[in-house]
Structures are given as structure tokens and as C-alpha cells.
């Protein structure tokens, strides 16, 4: 079987499952920080998905998006922690 089909039937399902798992955490919480890291992880997995997708589709251009994700995603987390601490003050 070709690599593409392998990706379709093995890799992507695995990644999908993991996304869903993380999403459950996002849903459950319980604390807001849990949700934040869940979000962070979702983005990271997103990077993975994009990578695999660009390999499968032979579209290296899509990697550019992955770069931006990798470079910027953590700003969200920082922002949230900033907020949560500030909120603790007031």
C-alpha cells in the first residue's frame, strides 16, 4: 500500500484520536489552566497534522503555516497565564 493510504488509514486516525482525547480534557477542565494547556496541545498536534498533510499531498508550501503556528502558538498560553495571574490580584 502507498504511503498516502497508510497516512490516511493509520497516521491520521491516530492523530484524530489524540485530538479528540485532548478535546475531552478541554471539555472537562476542571481548572482553566487545564483548558489552556489542552488548547496548546491541540495547536501542537495541529502542527503535526499539517506536516503529515503536506507530506501526503506533496505540498511543501503548507509547511509555512506550520512555522507560524510553531512560532506564535505559545503567545496564547503566555497571554492566558498573564491574565489568570492578574485576575488573582484583583
Amino acid at each position: 500500500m502507498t504511503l498516502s493510504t497508510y497516512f490516511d488509514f493509520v497516521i491520521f486516525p491516530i492523530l484524530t484520536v489524540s485530538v479528540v482525547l485532548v478535546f475531552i480534557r478541554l471539555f472537562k477542565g476542571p481548572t482553566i489552566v487545564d483548558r489552556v494547556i489542552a488548547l496548546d496541545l491541540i495547536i501542537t498536534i495541529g502542527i503535526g497534522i499539517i506536516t503529515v498533510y503536506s507530506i501526503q499531498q506533496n505540498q511543501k508550501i503548507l509547511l509555512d503555516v506550520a512555522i507560524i503556528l510553531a512560532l506564535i502558538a505559545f503567545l496564547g498560553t503566555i497571554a492566558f497565564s498573564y491574565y489568570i495571574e492578574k485576575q488573582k490580584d484583583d
Partner: protein
Amino acid sequence: MINIILGTLSTLGALFILFASIGILRMPDFYLRLSVTVKASSLGVGLLLICAAIMFPNDASVTTKAIAIVFFLIITTPIAAHLIGRTAYFIGTRLWKETIIDELEGMYNKETHELESDPTEATDKPVSRFDDQIADTEEETE
């Protein structure tokens, strides 16, 4: 041949990501979830990127992009983890009941968020982290 390498590498990467997600779901407390997710995921993604680099062998840009992504992930993820972890601790997110030691307890200066290095200097009372999560309770207001 190359396909096999790609297959294995990608499978490994995907699995590591999967472990990370199982981890974030299963781990008993926030800090454990955090530390699991950070590396497993970045390792997994790293492996996948290596696949990419191999996939486009005669294209320098892809390789460099892959390297760049990994590099960025390696720089940024720990920082994010550190900040959110410290915040979590600060707002009093509970540790797992079987946690054996917490040397950070009481080291924070409540007003200035300043963190002492020497236990003897820690004048402050422990940050009450056992009153339920402030961050959320404030949110829960109806």
C-alpha cells in the same frame, strides 16, 4: 525503502503525540499533565518533521523549514509550560494527593509575586492553594 523509514518515523511520531494526549487525559493532576504533554508532543512533531525533511530530499527549503519548526517548538514550548505551570501553582491548583514533596510551598511573596530562593527567608505563610480554584470560581459567578 524510503517509504518504510517514513512509515516507521511517522508512526512513532503519531504514537508519541497519542501518548501525550492520553497523558493529558489520564494524569491525576495539572502539573503531571503539563510535563507529559510538553515533551511527548514536541518529540512527536519533531519526528513527523523529520519525515517531511526526508520526503523532500532535494529541497533545502523543506529541510530548513522542518529544522526551523523544531527549533521554534523547542524554544517556545518550555517557556509556555513554565509560565502556565507557575501561574497554576500561583492560583493554587491542587497537587496530586500522592505528591511526596512541595518545596515551593510558601516561597512566594503574596504581594509582589516575588519568589524567594532560600527557605529560611520565606517569611510568608503558604499560599492557600487548598481554597478552591480562584480563577474558576470568579468565573462561575452567575
